[in-house]
């Protein structure tokens, strides 16, 4: 057992909501609008549904082994070596995702906020605080998230209310002009970010102190996060129209730029950036935590904190070379779903089936 910290179901919910909002709030509408046009918000609702189904699968697997994390029971189910191999694959998956998300923050900052600044110092800063978060342990970290939650919630509310005067309802029409096909295909394509990524929480699952409640909060967190994303998508279509929703690099930020009520309540886009920074910080820290636990389990270490610095350094390098430019990052979002599919769906399913057949559970 590498992790001794315990978190409450409440913290678990918040963590998941942040995780979902974090990676996607600036990006989601763009990909969905590309194929579903003005019906993208419906696609988003479908994605949330799909996400909830996935989460129930994770819950099934997680509650079968309430005190073990993904790597531990994969060794138990598949045997030592096959299990270790699977754990290693997961490690690679988590680690690559981590680099991708760090790069996303870097890209955002140098495109929108500090265009002349090199990306390296930003990444160093970010990875610095990420390592700090992991060193404090999951328990401290989740308490920190709990403190941030009301602030972020309030800011998000202010943001949404401030956008209301800019809404033009006719932007939504015609509804279902192209039939349901593009909506479903858009939904299926974008299930990868962030819902398939939720498999990461199987690493955190055993740390929750009440297993039955954990299942509920897993679902609830997903629902909250998904709702926020749907609202943002809806707002961006209502305010910006389909052209901008599709072609802006950071749609939600563009939305915040538009806020102008009475000539004084304006230029508050930093609010949006703040929401995003906090939530994606939580996301990358969880990824980092996941990869470290994974690695620790594979190497059968007694203590995982010794891994933070070396892996942090590798992350830094990886995050700089993972994409050559922003266009590649955008392109990557398109195939990320298929890349995540085995990790987010097939392997958990496999583990579940094999464990049923071999009648393995935690005892």
């Amino acid at each position, binding site marked *: 057992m590498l992790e001794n910290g315990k978190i409450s179901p409440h913290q678990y919910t918040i963590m998941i909501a942040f995780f979902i909002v974090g990676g996607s709030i600036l990006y989601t509408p763009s990909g969905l609008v590309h194929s579903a046009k003005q019906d993208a918000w419906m696609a988003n609702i479908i994605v949330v549904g799909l996400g909830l189904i996935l989460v129930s699968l994770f819950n099934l697997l997680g509650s079968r082994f309430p005190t073990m994390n993904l790597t531990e029971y994969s060794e138990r189910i598949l045997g030592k070596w096959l299990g270790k191999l699977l754990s290693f694959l997961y490690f690679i998956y988590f680690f690559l995702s981590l680099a991708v998300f760090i790069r996303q923050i870097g890209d955002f900052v140098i495109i929108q906020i500090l265009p002349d600044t*090199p990306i390296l110092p930003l990444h160093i800063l970010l990875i610095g605080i990420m390592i700090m978060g992991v060193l404090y342990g999951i328990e401290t970290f989740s308490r920190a998230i709990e403190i941030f939650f009301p602030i972020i919630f309030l800011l998000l509310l202010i943001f949404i209310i401030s956008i209301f005067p800019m809404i033009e309802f006719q932007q939504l029409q015609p509804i279902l002009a192209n039939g349901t096909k593009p909506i479903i295909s858009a939904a299926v394509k974008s299930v990868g970010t962030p819902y398939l990524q939720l498999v990461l929480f199987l690493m955190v699952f055993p740390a929750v102190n009440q297993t039955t409640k954990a299942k509920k909060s897993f679902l609830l967190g997903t629902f909250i996060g998904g709702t926020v994303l749907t609202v943002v998508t809806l707002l961006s279509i209502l305010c910006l129209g389909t*052209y901008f929703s599709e*072609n*802006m*690099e950071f749609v939600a930020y563009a939305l915040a730029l538009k806020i102008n009520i009475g000539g004084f309540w304006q230029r508050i886009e930093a609010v949006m950036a703040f929401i995003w920074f906090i939530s994606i910080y939580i996301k990358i820290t969880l990824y980092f935590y996941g990869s470290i636990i994974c690695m620790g389990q594979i190497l059968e270490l007694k203590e995982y904190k010794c891994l933070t610095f070396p892996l942090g350094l590798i992350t830094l390098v990886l995050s700089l070379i993972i994409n050559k*430019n*922003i*266009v*590649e990052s955008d392109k990557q979002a398109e195939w990320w779903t298929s890349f995540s599919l085995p990790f987010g769906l097939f392997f958990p399913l496999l583990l579940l089936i094999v464990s049923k057949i071999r009648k393995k559970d935690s005892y």
Partner: protein
Amino acid sequence: MNRKFLLIIISICSLSLLTSCWNRKELNELAIVVGMGIDIEDGKFVVTVQVVNPGEIAESQGGSGKSPVVVYQEKGNTLFEAIRRITTVSPRKLYFSHLRLLVLGEEFAKKGIAKTLDLLSRDPEMRADFYIVVAKNKKAGDILKIVTTMERIPVQQVFESLQSSEKAWATTIQITMDQLIYDIISEGISAKLTGIKLIGDVQDGGKLENTQQTKPTAFLKYDSIGVFRKDKFIGWLSESESKGLNYALGNVTSTVVTIPCPQKGKTAIELIHTTSELNTEVSDHKPKGIIKVTTVGNVGNVQCKTLDLTKPETISILERETKKNIEHSINKSLYAARKKYKIDPFGFGEALHRSNSDYWHLIKKDWLQILENMPVEIDVKVKIHNIGKIKNSPLNEIKN
């Protein structure tokens, strides 16, 4: 107690006594020179100085409508004589420590500037931190007479403009005194200075009315770089040649490169970080120059319909075109310097001196001939990271 008292007395006394000695200069006895221009007229030196008018500058409430600077002009057989003669018109002694800009008249620069530099570097009052420019097609005196709007002291505006234009556009070059002297005396590098142009009429430009218009009738503009053979000015480079020279010298940090789109139209790439290296190597007793430029850019402006910025391949096409453009301007500047003017503003000689000093001493005498046909390898690496706030241009959506 007694001791403390004594100490206080002493320190107060020394405050009034220790006010420097023979060289003491009070602020109200000085005329602070911010700009100096040197021309030559009928074999005589003409010195123009721009002196701050302290009354106008200090006042926080608008001043009395006088010009914020005063320009004095005098002639003399030597530069020193001309400078001293200015005191006959100026009520105060000229003080050169705050000189920001030295303007050399084109005519004067053609005759050779070495002797003048001697005086300027000999004078202890001169610091070496001012910039030197050449007045293109005009007298240096005229440049200093123009009043400007943005900054109250015209020279300050010109000084800042040189800094910002090198930072953001990179066809100008900031050369200070020590750099210029070094370039002149060294055998392996030739001097170069930025040109400044007066657009409009001197008569209009000197009046305060010039600043009361939104668009001044006479204003100053930086032009491309001028090159020297030894200490004599010999000609101007074009805009793209100047840029090429700056690429090779590593003076470019940020600039804009305009490249053609695959089909009709143009795209502007903003370079944000550029570093470069200039080296030489000797193989088979033959020198070879190497210019390495590494740059990171963003797509700044798409002016064509055919560019699909959602595809990574498009970025590689743009990178290739940008590379071509940079190589082209370096090649142009190489051609202009070596073939047209037969000089070495790049400092290949210096580089050779550093890398193969024995060889350098051997060929130093014929260096310029050797340079003319020396192969130069240009290695440009371009990376485009970002494409800005939007992906595809709205032009892509416009049919017809």
